[in-house]
Every structure is written in C-alpha cells, then in structure tokens.
C-alpha cells in the first residue's frame, strides 16, 4: 500500500472514526482503524462491533493499492499534529510509514485479516432522503429520546415508514417529539419500523456536509445502513417494541394559542432564571390578553414575563411546564410560527410548528 493523501481529509475521517473506536479493547486490532487504498480512493473503516462505518475520500493519490490496520488514536494524533498539506503513507509488512516534509513516523500495525468485517451498503435502498431533510428530522427528535429508561425501546429513536410516509419519533416518557415527511423517492411500497440508537444518528449527522446529498437508507433484519455519498454507516438497532405513540397524542384540544417562536423562547429562558431544584416548573397562564409566564424560587424571588399571542381560542387556562422541555422543542422548531394546544392543567399539551413537527409535553403540577 502506498499513497499520498490530503491531510485535512484524512484527519476528518479519522476524527469521525475515533467516535466509535474507543481504544480500550483488550484485543489490539479492535483499537485500530483499517485503511483500504483502492484504485482511486482511500477508505477508512472503523467499528466498535455495534456501529461500523466506511469513510471514503477521493483526495488521495494511490500509487499502490493495499490495506492495513493501524491504532486509531496514534494515527489520528500524528495526522492532527502534522502541519503538512499532504502525507505519504506506505506499508511495509506489519508497519506503516507516514512521511511529511520534515517527518517520518513508523507505526506498527496489525494484519487487516483480523479486522472485523464491517458490512458495506449493498443492494437497493429502502428509501432515499435528502440530507437536509433527514438532518432536520433527526435534530427535531433525538433530544427527546430517553437515556436510561428501563423500557429499553424508548432509549432509541423510532423510524417508521409506510410507503412514502416517514415518521421519526422519540420520547422519554415526559414528552414526545414527532416529525414527518413524505419521501419523494420511495422505492419500496411496504412499511418498516426500526429503533435506532441515538449515537448512530449523531454519527450520521456528523457525516452530513451537503444538504442536497441524497442519503440512501436500508433497514435490514438486524441492522440499519446509511449510505452518504461515498461513505456508509451501519449499526445494530435497539430491541423491543416502541410504545404506541399515536395513543398518547391527545385529541380534541379546545384551547389554542398562536404565537412567535422567538418571543416564547426568550420568555421561557428568562422565566427559568427564577426556578430552583425543588421547583423547576414555570406557570403558563393563557388568556385572550396574552400569555404570562411566572416562576418562583423560595428565598430568591419571583419572575413574571408577558408574551403577546397572535391569537387565542378557548377558555383561559393555567398550566405548569418544565421550561427545559419547552425550550428543547422551541430550539427544534424550524419555523417562526408555533401553536400551543391545551385542554386542562393536568393534561398534556401539544406544540406544533409547520405541518411536520409535533411535540407532546406533559405538564408539571406546581
């Protein structure tokens, strides 16, 4: 194997690879990335046995194809610390030489034959989605996934597709985020479900550079695979049944407030200043005159912030919410106009923006 590679491109690929290769495995080869020099490109392969990826760059000039497993952290450090625009990488038996203008490293590697197989994206995609759309959908949901719920399924993010309709859902039992889209390119008419670990989604987000890029997704029996241009990610999924999320989306909410996202965002942030450990909640008082947020922290003080409503339908209502949950949703809302729908102070509320994003949040009894 011999090649000259753009240092920036290699550093970026190795940086991403480092997110799965922890460097703590007792088996040395699992602390490695695998470099595969093909005819016209360099592929960096990394895996932690749960998530695997192939990161490909064409910013490499291959003089001699070949493959090698090299300790990920050392290689990354060398590449990061170097100042050369390009580096020459050459293998010699079980070692590689990395040369810059004034430097020469010889790093011992491992036989690539021992490196675990990382499935590549093969066969046809179940659906194709623009990176911009998938990125928005992930950002609008993954924050709401549970982190350590004993109902394991909700520690992941649900991908649910019925023909061209794709929904992505996450919940932690206190709130639920749901985002939908209609796929323009949907090959498969059937329906599919998959619960994806949030960490996998973060890796995918990390690899999205071009919003126009068409991402191919395939949901196999045990794995979900993403193809992003020349790179691909495969991951195991979360076992179990995602709770029937449609059942918890309340219907017939008779109070409806229309307001501007940024105004509410700023108001909730300010109201949250005067909360404390044992009283986290902020009171939302909706009337036709507008929305008043109030909070109180014993021995610290009280806050009251007025938020204008564009419109309010229904009877006035007082309800408490954890400001953090409301802020999460507002940050994820990609639209200026939002609506909040409510029924009673002990019942869930819905925050919506645009046709695609819906957020159910359970109230706090103040």
């Amino acid at each position: 194997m011999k090649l000259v590679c753009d240092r920036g491109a290699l550093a970026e690929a190795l940086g991403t690879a480092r997110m799965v290769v922890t460097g703590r495995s007792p088996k040395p080869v699992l602390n490695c990335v695998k470099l595969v020099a093909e005819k016209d490109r360099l592929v960096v392969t990394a895996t932690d046995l749960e998530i695997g990826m192939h990161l490909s760059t064409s910013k490499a000039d291959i003089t001699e194809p070949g493959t090698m497993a090299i300790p990920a952290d050392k290689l990354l450090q060398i590449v990061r610390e170097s100042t050369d625009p390009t580096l020459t990488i050459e293998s010699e038996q079980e070692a590689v030489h990395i040369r810059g203008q004034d430097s020469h490293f010889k790093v011992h590697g491992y036989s690539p034959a021992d490196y675990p197989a990382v499935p590549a994206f093969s066969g046809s995609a179940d659906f194709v989605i623009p990176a911009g759309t998938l990125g928005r959908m992930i950002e609008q949901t993954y924050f709401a996934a549970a982190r350590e719920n004993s109902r394991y399924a909700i520690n992941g993010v649900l991908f649910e597709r019925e023909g061209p309709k794709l929904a992505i859902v996450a919940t932690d039992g206190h709130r639920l985020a749901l985002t939908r889209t209609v796929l323009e390119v949907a090959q498969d008419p059937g329906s599919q479900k998959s619960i994806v670990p949030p960490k996998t989604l973060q890796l995918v987000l990390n690899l999205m550079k071009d919003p126009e890029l068409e991402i191919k997704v395939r949901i196999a029996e045990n794995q979900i695979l993403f193809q992003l241009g020349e790179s691909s990610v495969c991951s195991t999924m979360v076992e179990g049944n995602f709770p029937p999320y449609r059942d918890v989306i309340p219907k017939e909410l008779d109070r409806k407030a229309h307001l501007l996202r940024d105004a509410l965002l700023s108001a909730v942030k300010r109201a949250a200043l005067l909360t404390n450990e044992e009283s986290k909640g902020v009171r939302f008082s909706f009337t036709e005159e507008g929305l008043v947020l109030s909070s109180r922290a014993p021995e610290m003080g009280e806050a009251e912030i007025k938020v204008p409503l564009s419109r309010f339908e229904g009877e006035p209502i007082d309800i408490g919410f954890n400001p953090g949950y409301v802020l999460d949703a507002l940050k994820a809302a990609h639209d200026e106009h939002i609506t909040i729908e409510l029924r009673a102070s002990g019942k869930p509320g819905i925050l919506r923006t645009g046709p695609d994003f819906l957020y159910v949040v359970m109230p706090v009894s103040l």
Partner: protein
Amino acid sequence: MATVIGHKRPIGQLTSAIEQGRLSHALLMTGPRGVGKFTLACILARSTLCHDAPAPLKACGQCDSCRLIPELPDQTIENTHPDLHIIRKELAATSSNSILRTRKQLTIPVDLIREFIVGGQTSDGRHHDAPAYRTAALGHGKVFIIDEAELMDSHGQNALLKTLEEPPDGSLFMLISSSEDRLLVTIRSRAQRLGFGPLTDSEMSCWVDLRFAQIDPARAKGLLFFAEGSPGRFSMAERYGLDAWVRTVGQSLRKLESRELDDELGDRMAKGINEFAEAWVKEHVNASKDAANRRGAELMWSLVGNWIRRSLAKTVARCKRASLPKDDVEAEITGWLACLEALGRAESELASNVNLRMVTDHLAAGLWSALAASDN
C-alpha cells in the same frame, strides 16, 4: 464434541433441551473451578450463534460467526464476536470509567453490568446504552457469558434480575459460578441450573493425553497432584511450573513421613505460593496479589492434601496386607487425620488474613506434631 471430556450429565441436559426447543434463556453452570464450565459455555455459544449449526452444541465452522470464535475456546477468549459478550472481572480494564480501569479486579461491580449488559447510569455519571437490548449484529442471537458470576455484588445481581426475567428476544445468558450460594436466590430461580462435577481420574488422563500429548509422563503425574479432577487447574499448574513444588515441598513432606521435621518446609511452601502469585500478578493487569496468594495457597493445599490422602490410603492398605497390631494402625491413622485438621486450620487462617509465612510455618509444625504424636 471430541473436545469435551466428561460432564455427560450437563451435556445431556443441554442436548435434549436444544433438541426439544426448550433451552432456557438463562443458564446457571455451577461446579468446581476449572472443570470445563466456561469451555462448555463457549461451545454452546458458538453453536447458538452459528448460522448453520448441524446439531446441538455443534457449529458449522464455516460461517461469518464461527470464524470469529475459536473452535476450542479457553479462558483467554476475547470479545471479538459482536454478539458474544463475555463478562468477567477483567473486563474492568476496558471500561470507559477510568476508576474501574485502574482498580484492582476483585469483583464484578454493578457499573460493569450496566456498561456491558443492561445499560443505565454508572457511578461516574455516564449513561450507557444496553448491549443486551441491541439487535444482534450478525442476526443469529446474542450470548452473554458471565464468568465467576458470584463476584457480582448484590447491586450487580439485582441490576441483572429484570433482564434475566424478561430476556430480550434471541438472547442467551449463561452465568458461571463455582460458589452458587453467593448468588441471590432470585437470580438462581430465574436460571436453569446445570451442575458440573470434577472429572474422574480416567477422564483426566484422557484429557491430558489429548491436550498435552507431548508432556513427559512423569511431569504429568506430578501435575495431576494439583488437578483434583479439574483440567483448568492442571493447565494452570503446568503453566506456572508447579510440578517444581512436588520436588521441593514433596521432598520435605517425604521427610515428614519418616518423622523428620524439615525446617524448610514452611519456607518452601510460602516461597512456592509467593512465586506463583508474583508470576500471576505479572501476567494479569490489575490482578490483586492477595487474590493470587489465595489461589496459590489453594493449589499448595491440594498438594499437601493429596499427599495426606494418599498416605492415609497407603496406611490402610498396609494394615490390610500385613495384619499389623490394631493399636499401631489406629495411632497412625489418627496421625494422618490430625494432619488433615492442620490443613483445615491453615485454610481458615489464610482466610482470616494471617500472614502467609506464619500460616505455612504453622502448617509445617502442625503436620509434624500430628505425625510425631501418632508414634508415641
């Protein structure tokens, strides 16, 4: 199957359960240390994960899965198969928690169970996804083997409880323990129990022939002293050259037979144990010297115990052959029994953290006085 010698009963139980499709999701394999519980667990794992298993406990040896698991697994098997999760105290060295990584490995802390099996927040504040609730990477189930399961504290066992009760689809949990009484009743009641016993002498020699075909028969004989029906102990004795003990300590013991107290007996025993423990600690990162000492002492006691038992047997045989005066024989037998008592004392002294050298000296003196008394 040629590699598993003995253990007909547990193997029979497993085979018929697999054939009838009623293999439990949780197995508890118990029995003395080193008899082959872990090996059998690995064989079962290999067969379970095999994409095309020809028969119970068999594997095709060709598929993607089989290629990741050695055909003859031993204790040093690593977690390289994505769906075979081996949990043991040494796994702490690969934890994401730096405190666990550097701590002496005496137990399987709850954090390890969380990080590598059931997920959740560990004491360093980190959150872990639950490997047990991820889909199998190769699509043919997941296997979790917990070796020395009794080293889980009650928090760890409780953390595991729920998962054992409602195991995720296609998962198999095997708990391996040489002291099942240290497992919670609730754990034991959720697992199907498979009991393992020591191998018989003929099974042992069969095993030695198979695994140590090249070994010098005299050396093998010495090593069998330590084995007590446990191939694992045989291998360990072989690895650490414990047959040297047969020469050094054995020589002193033989002197005792002629009622001659060898001043060096205590010293030799302590030295042997200590050398073993040092070698052990050197080979095992973060191993505890105390634990290694105990392991070494255990081996030393089996050498001494073996010697006592054999001498006792010889005495009885001799008395049958040449009808000796009854009183003489009784005194001699009493002497050997007193030796066994001295050994028991040494065991409990070591368990209460008495200095090793003191224990071995006390044992040497105890053996001698027991035998000397029987002469009078």
